[in-house]
């Protein structure tokens, strides 16, 4: 068994206390753990299983269904660029290339400094303001290569 992290244990216990132990509360608990730590680690799965008395398999089955729940540390800023047709027609490819060139990684990867991760997302309903993307939970629309560079430097400034 992985080494138990005191922070994690008390966070999971507190969160489960807040929502309750019922299976219907598994998703909000997973979301909070994901937000707090940036991902749900193996140790976190064990703690959630222990505190909620749900099997690890079931918890991982739920977690892996949702692409917004990470199973590894993706980075401080997870960028999710819309890959569906409206954004694609509105110049998604240029945005894609700008990101890859500026950050030096491909989509699906994370930067070595642990700051950025590039991912795709499905339609966010912003087709009228395409191309669109998410940085963590923040929406950005009407993207251009220039605005992308601004967003990246803004993120870098914030740390």
């Amino acid at each position, binding site marked *: *068994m992985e080494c138990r992290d005191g922070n994690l244990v008390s966070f999971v216990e507190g969160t489960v206390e807040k929502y309750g132990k019922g299976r219907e509360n598994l998703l909000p608990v997973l979301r909070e753990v994901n937000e707090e730590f940036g991902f749900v680690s193996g140790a976190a799965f064990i703690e959630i*299983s222990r505190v909620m008395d749900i099997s*690890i*398999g*079931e918890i*991982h*089955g739920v977690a*892996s*269904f949702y692409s917004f729940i990470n199973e590894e540390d993706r980075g401080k800023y997870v960028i999710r660029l819309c890959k569906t047709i409206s954004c694609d027609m509105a110049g998604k490819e240029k945005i894609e290339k700008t990101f890859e060139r500026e950050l030096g990684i491909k989509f699906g990867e994370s930067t070595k400094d642990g700051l950025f991760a590039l991912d795709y997302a499905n339609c966010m309903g912003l087709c009228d303001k395409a191309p669109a993307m998410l940085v963590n939970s923040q929406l950005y629309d009407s993207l251009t290569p220039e605005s992308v560079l601004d967003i990246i430097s803004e993120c870098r400034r914030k740390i």
Partner: protein
Amino acid sequence: MSEMIKVNIDGIEVEVESGATVLSACEKAGVKVPVLCHHPDLNVAGVCRVCMVEIEGMGNLQASCAYPVTQPLTVKTKTNRVRKARRMNLDLVLAEHYGDCYTCPRNGNCELRTLADEYGVDKFKFPHVDKPRYAKDTKSFSIIRDQDKCIHCKRCIRTCIDMQKVNVYETANKGHDVEIQVALNKSIADVVCINCGQCVNRCPTGALWTQDVSDQVWEDIENPDLFVIMQTAPSPRAAIGEEFGYPPGTRVTKKLNAAMRRAGFDKVLDTNFAADLTIMEEGTELLERLHKVIVKKDKSVKIPMFTSCSPGWVKFIEHYYPDHLDHLSTCKSPQQMYGAVIKTYYAEKIGIDPSKIRTVALMPCSAKKYECNRPEMNASGYRDVDYGLTTREMAMMLKEAGLHLADMPTEEFDPVLGEGSGAGMIFGATGGVMEAAIRTVYELVTGRPVPFERLNITPVRGMEAIKEASLKLEKVKKEYKWLEGVELKIAVAHGTANAKILMDKLVDGTLDYHFIEVMACPGGCLGGGGQPIPTTPEIRKARANAIYQEDEEIEIRKSHENPLIQKLYKEFLGKPGSHKSHELLHTHYTKRGQYFVKD
């Protein structure tokens, strides 16, 4: 009884209870509908969609396994539309399946391949997987997983979670990326798997199999320096005939003896003998525990005592109830007891150096493979049991050697430790260990045989989830005065889901029994994970009948009356529960906990 509803299947009228599935109506009408994800032991999943039928008045085709009858229906199962839809769904399943049929253990007994054959699949309609995508998981002593063969029918998941309440498997990811995983994508050797093998027995393809040791057994048979001893359990004998085309419930014990000798085993022994030995030890242990609890008021001794013959059950309690291991009998299972006796007493009797002996156990069980590899199982200084073979593997070995049971003469077991009583025989069925134990314990305490017609303790027989009985001990022998008037309360559970019900009561402190038998598999060992595929409720009943019939035909039906057992105690062990017995025939358990096995 609920309302009966008329269903017309291809012109045949049947009546089924409201809520029954269309599939069950088809079965009642004698109309065959193909199934893949459906299994009579499991909950409805409705994921494979090969059981599609046309229901009059409905726009879409329906999966018959999942469609409940709530009003009169007219169903068609053979229209072109149905046929084409089934074929299409089958093509889609095949598109995901890496079909390496020649090298697959299920070659010849694969439900997917059978359907492809029946539905005349002559080409792959969709792109086909032609290279393996996953590494096989072969780390476990018992279970092998080959995800390339998996068709996501979820039978293993339903078996593990609903039927056995072990919770090893999960459905991970979504859409096209869905995979059946073992918790957090670990090896099945590293999680809380109890090795019961029920998933293997339910899998329609070769995605799950048991760790096959038959090659090593063949090597040892051929090695002139080694003396290979086979012991066979009652359940494989009641089932192996199925692998050779006999109907379920055909008894082939004596033909099997002959076949195994011809395959090259130097001796063929009967595990029932060791089952009798287990009863002597376990019965004595029960009486000792009762004495300590009732007379000495010793709080450290735990009642109820649970049986420990089923290695799946033992690992279940080690994982899920590690604080209650003191309730488990310390007796090894018959398989392991036999191994220990073979490599000590028997080795001396036949004059062979135990280091040259290899013991092979024919078992209905995949967990026995894990059990014989437990590090503590080496009381004689050697491995108690070297190899555990399942019924299926034994059948394969015999077929490989061209030994067909139908062609075999009938032969007896080898002498010295050869024979078991009828009490040992019924160890294969749920309730059997309890019945065998009660036949002996009651007689030990009262001096009279159990008060049941022909010794058949019917309350503990049958396929009920949890069986209970009680037996008043009256007019006891004077050395058991302290038991006078005590009502011995017993319970029997089969399948770990039922065992869990009892264990949860134990944790709550509301479990009021003296002695409880648990077998990890539904129906007991005869429904074990190493038994022929398919295993269904009907087949389990047929195998149980075979076992109880054999018990009635054996002259000695009580373990303590087995003269070979008496001789073993006289010449070697002393008495049941002696120091030597404890050294060789008893064991200890490991607190494992619910999460991952230590790497």
